[in-house]
C-alpha cells in the first residue's frame, strides 16, 4: 500500500473495521465446519483446516493491518473455508452460496487483488478435485446431458462474471471512500480556518461531493476577502474618527489651559489689588466695597477652579495626592469657613470636638476631603432656613494602621424628593430649576465631589425627605500617620482675614527680610501686586519685564531667588530658566515658576526646564511667602560673589567678610548694619542658653540654638563666629560640651559686636555729601507728599534718589521715613515729610 497516503490514520481504522467484519464472517463458516465435523466425523479436517483458516488471517491482520498481505491471507483463508464446505456437501448447490457471500465480503477492501487471488484459489481447488481426484467430489448436480467441459464452462463463467462485477463494484467503492476522506479532511481544515487548503483537481473532477466542497470553499474565500477589505476600510474610518476626537480633546484641553490663563491673569490683578487696597483704605464705605470685591473675586475663582476640576476629572487627568494630615485641623478649617455664614442664617452648626474618639493623624488627600465636606456643608447652609447642620465623623473599623471613617453631613433643610436622587450628581443640574434662581450656584459641586469620592474608592449615600432634611454620608479608608510624619509635612494654612495681610505677611516672612528677589513678569499690574506683597515681608524686589531683561539683571546683581512667569514676550520663562541653569554659579538658585497655567502638563514642563517650584496664579500671598521661605532660607550663605563695586569708604573690620554680605544686599550698607544690629540683639540673650541646655544634657536643643545663631550671623559675613560655631556644633553632635570652644564662640560674638560699632562709625562718617542737594530734596519731598495723599506707591529707586540729596544730619529722618513707608503708614510718612520741609526752610 502507498506509504505516503495522506489518510493513513483513517485508512488504518477503515482496514481494521473491514478485517473485523470479515473475521466474523469467517467465524460463522468455522461454526458450520464444526457442524460438519460432528455429523460427518470430519474432526481432523476441522482442526487442521477450519481452525487455522481463522487463526492465521486473524494473526496476520493483527500484525500488518494495512498491508496487502493481510488482505490476501484473508482471501486465501475464505476460499479454504468455502472449499471445505463445498467439498463436504458433495458440491451442494446451496453450499456454493457461501462462496458468493465470501467473495462479496472481500469487496469491502476496495481492492481487486484479493478478489483475483480468491478466484484463483477456488479455481485451483475445483480443477484439482475434478482433474486430479475426479471421482472424489460429487457431480450429482451435473446434468447428464452436459459434458465435463460443458459443466466446467458454465460453472467457471458464472465465477468469472461474479468476480468481474465485484472488481467493478470495489473500484467504485474505493473512489467513493477516498472522495469522502478528502472531503471530510478538507471540511475540517476549512473549519479550522485554513481556507486556502488546496484540493487535487483530478480528485475534484471525479467527485461531486468534492466539487460542492470546493465551491463552498471559494465562496468562503470571497467572503473572507470582502470582509478583510471591509475591516481595513472601517479601521481607516475609525482611525480618522479617533484622530478627529483626539484633536477635539486636545483643543478642549488647550482651550481650558488658555481660558484658565486668560481668566486667572486678570483675577490675579483683582484679588491682589483689592487685597492690597484693603490695607490702605481708610474710608469705611470703600473698605466695605473692597471687601466685597475681594470676597466676590475669591468665589469667582472658586467657580473657575470647579470648572477646571470637573474637566480634569472627566478627562481622567485628576490625581489624588496622599500625604499626612491632621483631621482635626481640617474640621477646624471647616468650622472657620462656615461658622459665620451659619450664624448669620441663625442655624446651629455642630462639628466634632477633639474629645471624640477617632484617629486624627491620617494619610490622605486633605485638600480633596475638605473640598467634598465643604461642598456638603456649603450646600446644607444654602438649603437650610432653620434648625441645625451637623458634621458627624465616626471611626467604623480600625485595624492595624488602617481606619475606616464615616463622614456624614446632616441638615434640617428643604430636603430632596426621592425621584430627584438620580439627577443629584449630574453636572450643571440642580434638582429644581428654580433653585438656581433662589439659591444660586453652578450645580457642579456634588458632581465634582462624587468624582472625587470615586477616585478615593468611595461613594455617597443619600437619604432625604422633602421639607424634613437631608443626610449625605460616605466612608473612606485611611492609613493612620505617625505624629512624626504629620510634623514633617504639615503646613499650617488658615484662611486670612482681609485687611490683616500686612501684619500676617510680616510675621510669616520675617526670615525673608532683606532677601533680594527678582520678579520676571510682563504684566504691569501683576508686577505691582507681587512686588507689593513681597515688600510687605520686607523683601527687596527687582523687576524684569521678560527673560532677556532677567538675564541682564543677573549679570549686574545678585539675587536670592527668582519668581519667573512662564508666558512672556521676547523670551519666555522656560527659555530664560534654561539659560540661567547653564551658568555654574546659578545651579542652585531657586527659580519659582509663576503662572496662571494650572494643568499638570505645565507644572511638569516648568520643573523639567530647571525650575525649582511652582506657584499658581492668582497668587495666594501666604503660599508665595511660604514657598520663598522654604527655598531661600538655606541659600543666603552660599550667595555668589560677582559684585563689581563696593562701598569704597568702608574699610574691612575684624571678624566680618563685608564684601560678600554687601554683594548680597546690593551694596546697601545701611541695610546691612540694620540687619546685623537686629541679629546681634536677637542672638545675644540666647548665648547663655547654649551653655545652660548643654549642662542640662539637652545637647540637641543646644545644637539647635548654635545652629540658628551661626546661620543668622554667618549669613551676614561673620566668618569668625561661623567657624567657632562649627567647632562648637561638632562637639555638641558628639554629645560633649567643651567650655574652651564655647568661650571662643563667645569671644567671636563680642568681637562681632565691637566690629559692628566700628562699622557704624565709619558709615556715619562717610557722608554722601557730594550729592547733597537741599533744593532737590525739598522738591522731591513735596512730590512724595502728593503721591502719598493719593495712596500712590513710591518706588525704591525714587526713594534712593531722594536719599542721595540729603546730608548726614538728615539721615535719621530718612531712616524713620523709610520704616514708615515699609509698614505702609502713609499718614505718618506724610507728617514726617511735612516736618522735614518746614525744618529745612
Amino acid at each position: 500500500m502507498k506509504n505516503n497516503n495522506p489518510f493513513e490514520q483513517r485508512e488504518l481504522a477503515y482496514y481494521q473495521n473491514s478485517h473485523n467484519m470479515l473475521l466474523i464472517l469467517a467465524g460463522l463458516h468455522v461454526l458450520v465446519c464444526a457442524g460438519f465435523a460432528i455429523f460427518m466425523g470430519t474432526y481432523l479436517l476441522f482442526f487442521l483446516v477450519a481452525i487455522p483458516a481463522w487463526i492465521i488471517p486473524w494473526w496476520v491482520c493483527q500484525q500488518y493491518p494495512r498491508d496487502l498481505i493481510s488482505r490476501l491471507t484473508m482471501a486465501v483463508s475464505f476460499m479454504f473455508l468455502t472449499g471445505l464446505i463445498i467439498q463436504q456437501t458433495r458440491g451442494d448447490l446451496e453450499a456454493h452460496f457461501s462462496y458468493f457471500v465470501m467473495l462479496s465480503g472481500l469487496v469491502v477492501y476496495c481492492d481487486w487483488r484479493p478478489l483475483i487471488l480468491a478466484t484463483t484459489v477456488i479455481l485451483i481447488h475445483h480443477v484439482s478435485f475434478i482433474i486430479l481426484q475426479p471421482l472424489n467430489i460429487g457431480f450429482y448436480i451435473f446434468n447428464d446431458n452436459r459434458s465435463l467441459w460443458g459443466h466446467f464452462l458454465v460453472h467457471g463463467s458464472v465465477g468469472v462474471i461474479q468476480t468481474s462485477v465485484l472488481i467493478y463494484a470495489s473500484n467504485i467503492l474505493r473512489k467513493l471512500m477516498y472522495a469522502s476522506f478528502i472531503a471530510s479532511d478538507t471540511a475540517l481544515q476549512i473549519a479550522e480556518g485554513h481556507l486556502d487548503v488546496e484540493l487535487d483537481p483530478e480528485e475534484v473532477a471525479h467527485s461531486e461531493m468534492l466539487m460542492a466542497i470546493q465551491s463552498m470553499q471559494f465562496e468562503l474565500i470571497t467572503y473572507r476577502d470582502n470582509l478583510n477589505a471591509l475591516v481595513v476600510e472601517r479601521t481607516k474610518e475609525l482611525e480618522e474618527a479617533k484622530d478627529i476626537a483626539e484633536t477635539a480633546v486636545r483643543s478642549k484641553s488647550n482651550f481650558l489651559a488658555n481660558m484658565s490663563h486668560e481668566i486667572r491673569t486678570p483675577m490675579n490683578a483683582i484679588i491682589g489689588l483689592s487685597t492690597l487696597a484693603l490695607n490702605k483704605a481708610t474710608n469705611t464705605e470703600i473698605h466695605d466695597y473692597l471687601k466685597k470685591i475681594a470676597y466676590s473675586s475669591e468665589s469667582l475663582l472658586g467657580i473657575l477652579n470647579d470648572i477646571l476640576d470637573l474637566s480634569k476629572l472627566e478627562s481622567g487627568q485628576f490625581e489624588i495626592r496622599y500625604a499626612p494630615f491632621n483631621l482635626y485641623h481640617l474640621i477646624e478649617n471647616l468650622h472657620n469657613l462656615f461658622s459665620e455664614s451659619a450664624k448669620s442664617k441663625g442655624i446651629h452648626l455642630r462639628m466634632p470636638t477633639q474629645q471624640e474618639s477617632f484617629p486624627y493623624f491620617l494619610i490622605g488627600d486633605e485638600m480633596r476631603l475638605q473640598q467634598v465636606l465643604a461642598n456638603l456643608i456649603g450646600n446644607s447652609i444654602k438649603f437650610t432656613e432653620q434648625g441645625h447642620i451637623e458634621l458627624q465623623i465616626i471611626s467604623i473599623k480600625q485595624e492595624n494602621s488602617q481606619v475606616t471613617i464615616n463622614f456624614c453631613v446632616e441638615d434640617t433643610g428643604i430636603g430632596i424628593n426621592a425621584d430627584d436622587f438620580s439627577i443629584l450628581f449630574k453636572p450643571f443640574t440642580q434638582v429644581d430649576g428654580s433653585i438656581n434662581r433662589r439659591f444660586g450656584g453652578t450645580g457642579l459641586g456634588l458632581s465634582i465631589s462624587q468624582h472625587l469620592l470615586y477616585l478615593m474608592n468611595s461613594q455617597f449615600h443619600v437619604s432625604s425627605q422633602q421639607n424634613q432634611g437631608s443626610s449625605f454620608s460616605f466612608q473612606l479608608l485611611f492609613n493612620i500617620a505617625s505624629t512624626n510624619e504629620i510634623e514633617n509635612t504639615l503646613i499650617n494654612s488658615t484662611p486670612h482675614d482681609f485687611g490683616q495681610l500686612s501684619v500676617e505677611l510680616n510675621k510669616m516672612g520675617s526670615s525673608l527680610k532683606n532677601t533680594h528677589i527678582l520678579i520676571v513678569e510682563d504684566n504691569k499690574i501683576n508686577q505691582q501686586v507681587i512686588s507689593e506683597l513681597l515688600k510687605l515681608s520686607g523683601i527687596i524686589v527687582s523687576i524684569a519685564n521678560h527673560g532677556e531683561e532677567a538675564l541682564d539683571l543677573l549679570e549686574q546683581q545678585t539675587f536670592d531667588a527668582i519668581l519667573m512667569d512662564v508666558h512672556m514676550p521676547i523670551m519666555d520663562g522656560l527659555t530664560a530658566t534654561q539659560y540661567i541653569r547653564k551658568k555654574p554659579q546659578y545651579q542652585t538658585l531657586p527659580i519659582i515658576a509663576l503662572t496662571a497655567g494650572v494643568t499638570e502638563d505645565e507644572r511638569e514642563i516648568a520643573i523639567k526646564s530647571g525650575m525649582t517650584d511652582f506657584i499658581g496664579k492668582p497668587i495666594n500671598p501666604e503660599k508665595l511667602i511660604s514657598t520663598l521661605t522654604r527655598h531661600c532660607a538655606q541659600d543666603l550663605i552660599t550667595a555668589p560673589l560677582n559684585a563689581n563695586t563696593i562701598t569704597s569708604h568702608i574699610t574691612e573690620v575684624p571678624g566680618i567678610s563685608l564684601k560678600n554680605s554687601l554683594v548680597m544686599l546690593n551694596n546697601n550698607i545701611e541695610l546691612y548694619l540694620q540687619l546685623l544690629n537686629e541679629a546681634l540683639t536677637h542672638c545675644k540673650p540666647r548665648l547663655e542658653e547654649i551653655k545652660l541646655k548643654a549642662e542640662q544634657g539637652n545637647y540637641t536643643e543646644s545644637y539647635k540654638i548654635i545652629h540658628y545663631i551661626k546661620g543668622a550671623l554667618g549669613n551676614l559675613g561673620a566668618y569668625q563666629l561661623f567657624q567657632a560655631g562649627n567647632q562648637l556644633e561638632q562637639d555638641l553632635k558628639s554629645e560633649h560640651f567643651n567650655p574652651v570652644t564655647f568661650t571662643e564662640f563667645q569671644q567671636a560674638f563680642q568681637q562681632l559686636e565691637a566690629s559692628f560699632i566700628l562699622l557704624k562709625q565709619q558709615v556715619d562718617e562717610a557722608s554722601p555729601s557730594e550729592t547733597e542737594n537741599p533744593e532737590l530734596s525739598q522738591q522731591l519731598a513735596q512730590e512724595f507728599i502728593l503721591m502719598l495723599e493719593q495712596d500712590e506707591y513710591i518706588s525704591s529707586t525714587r526713594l534712593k534718589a531722594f536719599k542721595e540729596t540729603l546730608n548726614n544730619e538728615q539721615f535719621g529722618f530718612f531712616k524713620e521715613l523709610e520704616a514708615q513707608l515699609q509698614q505702609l503708614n502713609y499718614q505718618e510718612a506724610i507728617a514726617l515729610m511735612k516736618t522735614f520741609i518746614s525744618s529745612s526752610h
Partner: protein
Amino acid sequence: MKKILELSKRQLSKRSLVLILSLWVMGTAYAMWALNPISATDVMKHHH
C-alpha cells in the same frame, strides 16, 4: 488473552511470515486433498 493479543501484535520479519504462510497453504491443500471424506464409491452410488 491479553498476552496472546500482545504476542500476536509482535511483528515477525517478512521472510518468516511468507515461510509460515506458505507452509500453511501447502499443509491445508494437502489436508483437504488427503482427508476428503467423500469416496468415489459414494459418488458412484449416488450417481446411479
